[in-house]
């Protein structure tokens, strides 16, 4: 049931990101909505549960994007690994640090993408507008990132409770 929740959330985020958001100029430079989801998995869920989900979602994203195959997959796995590492040294589950975790995650994702573009596309150069896009994304992440994390957590708890009632036993 938990995996079903992940799939529903992923589909919703994906549709919102690729179909709904382009209609709103305000979200022109919004960050990847899957990034806070991966961060949520890293912060609050187990490695065994998260890894298959990240692999599947990363693979789907790779197939929808024009980037090299595996770029999203690598990015998400690195993002997940970074979050798992950070929680061993910092108490980032506190709400105070959440904005910075999401912002750092979005920054990391952009750095990986920029690195990939630099490496795989000959003669590629980054303009002022590209750096400005990264800055705007990080700012968006600072402001809205924790809301997503709290929302995912709340929704997941509700889902677990609801599925537990339906199936008559608590779900993992």
């Amino acid at each position, binding site marked *: 049931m938990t995996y079903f929740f992940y799939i529903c959330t992923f589909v919703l985020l*994906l549709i919102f*990101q*690729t*179909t709904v958001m*382009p209609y709103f100029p305000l979200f022109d*430079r919004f960050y*990847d909505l*899957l990034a806070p989801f991966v961060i949520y998995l890293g912060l609050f869920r187990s490695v065994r549960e998260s890894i298959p989900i990240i692999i599947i979602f990363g693979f789907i*994203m790779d*197939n*929808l*994007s*024009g*980037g090299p195959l595996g770029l*999203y997959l690598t990015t998400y796995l690195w993002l997940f690994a970074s979050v798992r590492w950070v929680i061993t040294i910092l108490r980032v589950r506190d709400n105070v640090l959440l904005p910075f975790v999401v912002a750092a995650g979005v920054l990391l994702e952009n750095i990986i*993408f*920029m690195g990939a*573009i630099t490496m795989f*596309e000959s003669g*590629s*150069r*980054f*303009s002022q*507008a*590209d750096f400005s*896009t990264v800055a705007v*994304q990080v700012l968006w992440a600072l402001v809205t990132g924790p809301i997503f994390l709290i929302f995912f957590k709340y929704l997941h708890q509700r889902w677990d409770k609801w599925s537990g009632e339906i199936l008559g036993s608590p779900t993992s």
Partner: protein
Amino acid sequence: MIPKKMVVIIGVIVLIAANIIALSVTSRRHASFGSGRIALSFAAPFQKAVTRSIRFARGLWKHYFLTVSVAQESYKYKKALGLAQQQNNQLRELKLTNVRLRNLLDFQKTMTNQVLAAEAIGKDPSQWYKTIIIDKGKDEGVAKGMAVVVPEGIVGQVMDVSAHNSKVLLIIDPNSAVDALIQRTRARGVIKGGSSGRCLFKYVLRKHDVGVGERVVSSGMDGVFPKGLAVGRVAGVIRRSSGIFQEVTVTPFVDFEKLEEVLVVLSPPKH
């Protein structure tokens, strides 16, 4: 002696006559002798109060129902207005769609190649890569490498196909390449995706004369895009003192943020 009965009769007649005379006198003069004012002063305030109360109650009653009916009417009108606005928006949207499709149809007629109309249904999830998803795929005859165009110019190239959907690499993506030439001077080069929605016109020799504002069209030499399709307009030229090429920036004619319907060129261009 006059009988008593007769006295009573005469008295009554006199009283009636006196009464008639008095009435006829008062009816001509309208005199009140001050009593009228007193009576009026006494009764008028009550009359006034009662009259006003009645009128107030009647007014309240009338206004209440009027207000209710007005409110109902207002609600009805608001609903009607909302519906009308909604219909108006739909009609406006239909009109715009109609104009777009008409342009597309006109353009389709001018194309010598066989084309297929498709709708853009999704955008690349990444900010760094520029692709769109269209609602036509293998089953409709779309294949990898086919050109995608709109009346304004070249959109891109099909890079991935599923049964009913395809992924189109836009010409503003860094991975895209279109063989093109300056329409006036026929200077040849390759259009590649740049930053901020612009393209770079690469490998244009320094000896060629390229001016800002000139039209760039497809050369048809890449085997993907038909010859003569509009690509964009030259936005900037940098000719360095060294090197054999010049740096040319091109602003595409297509507004990629507003792409809704596109045409997939099904048959390859004829050389």
